[in-house]
């Protein structure tokens, strides 16, 4: 059962002016309940435009977005409810923090849902727990926190709405490697614990390879691939032709195979590579076939 579905979705910025631009063209995708999907594409390929359609921030020029089989724009007045069901974390979400305390900032979304204060409190603490924010940080002003902590507060602010679908636009951009790992791990944990559907837009192939089950590749406003992660990364040449790369480990494996080394299948993460190579090393090294 697909939780969210796009049907022939198109969007044009500034129609009827010289600045007219087709951001996305005729996109049809189905996303299943509980999927973890990575969205990749070069800058300006329409990734951000696409995800802003999924929670009704942008209204499609043509086509439909279906949430649980229903057109989200059927009742335009109720579009706000869609945004509680499809949570979207923007790029650099720490720039949207505004409350006196982190606690209040995380509570902004749930409060907008009209929940009672007990429920809000429970949700804020749960979301803060997911992103590993200690109680003392919750009482601090969000502007006193470090960059990574701010980002976690902002992500918790969307998680606290407990959306069915969680979309994150470049959640690890601008963070150091440790910060990236923390954020990715906590998103994975959140997904496994809640069984919710997660979409991540990213430029980092390593991030995608590590977390996503399926990958959606965007190119010039169209979907050029949408398949299991391994299937997408095995088409390295095509990815390169549209200006994208495969994870570094995958590239090494492909080159090893080209040079005639028998390294077994492909690897997309360092862990996979380790699991493939270590047994071979134990058997006495890797040999050219």
């Amino acid at each position, binding site marked *: 059962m697909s939780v969210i579905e796009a049907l022939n979705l198109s969007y044009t910025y500034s129609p009827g002016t010289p600045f007219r631009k087709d951001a996305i063209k005729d996109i049809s995708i189905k996303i299943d309940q509980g999927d973890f999907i990575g969205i990749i594409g070069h800058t300006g390929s329409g990734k951000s435009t696409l995800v802003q359609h999924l929670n009704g921030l942008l209204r499609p020029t043509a086509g439909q977005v279906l949430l649980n089989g229903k057109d989200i724009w059927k009742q335009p007045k109720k579009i706000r409810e869609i945004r509680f069901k499809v949570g979207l974390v*923007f790029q650099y979400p720490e720039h949207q923090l505004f409350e006196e305390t982190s606690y209040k900032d995380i509570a902004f979304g749930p409060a*907008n849902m009209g929940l009672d204060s007990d429920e809000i409190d429970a949700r804020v603490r749960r979301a803060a727990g997911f992103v590993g924010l200690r109680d003392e940080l919750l009482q601090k002003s969000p502007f006193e926190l470090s960059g990574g902590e701010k980002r976690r507060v902002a992500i918790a602010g969307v998680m606290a709405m407990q959306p069915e679908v969680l979309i994150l636009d470049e959640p690890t951009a601008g963070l150091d490697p440790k910060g990236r790992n923390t954020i990715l791990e906590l998103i994975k944990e959140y997904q496994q614990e809640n069984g919710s559907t997660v979409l991540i837009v990213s430029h980092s192939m390593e991030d995608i390879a590590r977390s996503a089950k399926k990958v959606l590749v965007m190119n010039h406003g169209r979907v050029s691939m949408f398949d299991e992660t391994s299937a997408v990364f095995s088409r390295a040449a095509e990815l390169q032709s549209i200006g994208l790369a495969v994870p570094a480990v995958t590239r090494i494996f492909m080159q090893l195979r080209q040079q005639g080394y028998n390294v077994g299948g492909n690897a997309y993460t360092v862990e996979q590579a380790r699991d493939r190579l270590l047994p071979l090393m134990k058997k006495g090294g890797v040999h050219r076939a």
Partner: protein
Amino acid sequence: MLNDITIGQYYPGNSMLHRMDPRVKLVLTFVYIFSVFIPRNWAGLAIAAGFLIFIIILSDLPAKLIFKSIKPILPLILITSALNIFYVSKGVPLFDWGFIHITSQGLVTAVFIAIRILCLIAGSSLLTYTTSPTTLTDALERLLSPLKVIRLNVHELAMMMTIALRFIPTLIEETDKIMSAQKARGADMESGGVMQRIRALIPILIPLFVSSFRRAFELATAMECRCYRGGEGRTRMKQLHMRVSDVVYIVVMLLLAAGLFILNFILKPAL
């Protein structure tokens, strides 16, 4: 939604008006605005309006642009005309009903003043259409430089204006992004009473302020890294030069103003 606002209406081109020295253009625009108020007779007004149409044709701007600049002023023109029609009591009465008296003189005054305002708006919009904002501040800096005598820091003033103009689109973009982000968290900006709507602005204004300050600090640091120390001894990449043609434009404009002035004595006033 904010994408629809266009600020800095500069319309790039290479017409005579685009190439005119911006200082001369700025001053002549003011001279023209004053000239529009000189005529007291139809012939003078026709000359002033005709001159403007001639300049608009020379400027190579699409007529649509000029109408666009007039559009927001239309209500004002209509109100002034209406007031003139109803309140001028001189002349031949044309219509009399209860408290409404319309006279021939009232209609004449209304049309006369409407044309005057139209010329005024269209004339001044020509300046912003054919001069980029940075060129305009450059010209302003040069024109105001004599004020250094009274210790007014003209350079800093112009720099502030340039920076402010440069960051308007950036701020609009930023506002758009923050609005979307808060809407994604269920912020409701479209319903509720006045107080509720004002309160709904807080989640947008605070992040906007924070990011503006951050940007300002970053810009200041970046400028200092490039050894910016104010206007003292600073040379310019684009030098402004007055050419023979600019002198010709000045002479033409002064002749126009003088001609309009003299016409007032020759012809019978229409007002």
